[in-house]
């Protein structure tokens, strides 16, 4: 048995296992969950309605341009050391 935490318009925010000590007031209780990402569903009138939200663009992988070279790193360290006490 599962309890659904619903958001606006019946959007499923999360589902939890119903435990004996829990308080699930106001949360619909269901026997099964939809396959896949449950946040792609709404729970309306006792039924699951597939209504996926737009997925965000994946984070771009860092490219070599993001990294400094060893020489640049060494120069930055040298600059920091030289500036000490000035």
């Amino acid at each position, binding site marked *: 048995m599962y309890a659904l935490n619903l958001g606006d318009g019946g959007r499923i925010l999360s589902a939890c*296992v119903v*435990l004996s000590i829990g308080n699930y007031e106001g949360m619909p209780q269901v026997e099964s969950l939809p396959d896949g990402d449950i946040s792609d569903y709404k729970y309306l009138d006792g039924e699951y309605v597939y209504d996926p939200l737009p997925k965000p663009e994946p984070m771009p992988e860092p490219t070599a341009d993001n990294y400094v070279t060893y020489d640049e790193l060494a120069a930055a360290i040298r600059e920091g050391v030289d500036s000490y006490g000035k």
Partner: protein
Amino acid sequence: MANGKIDKALQQLLAMWQALKAAISQKAEIKLLWQNASPGSSFAAQTIKLGLSGYNYVDITVRANNDKASEYTTRLKVDGGATDIGAMGSTGLYRPATPTQAGVAFLVGRAYTAYNTSNTVQSNNYCVPVKIYGIKGAV
């Protein structure tokens, strides 16, 4: 005279036993209060309603990056304010959580875009809560 010493020793033993019983009765109690039934799903900002009025702390386990191998547990004080929970090491994935007596409010998960930066990106897939335990008594 000997009986007096024995009597005194017995009195001390009785006092120690009563102190031990009192300590045992105040031992920490940990209970599973919430378990995510679909930990592989996205987890938007939301409040998990829990009756935490009798609990001192909560242990919250999250999956940093949607796999069981990346589970991290953080202990938070009830009514202790917002705290970033998750994997704060080199991966820099976290999710702010605020436990109150009414439950635990979660914001969206975040990830630092690079080492040693304050820039973050947000995702409902970062640091998805998996379990919440309530803790009573001494810890």
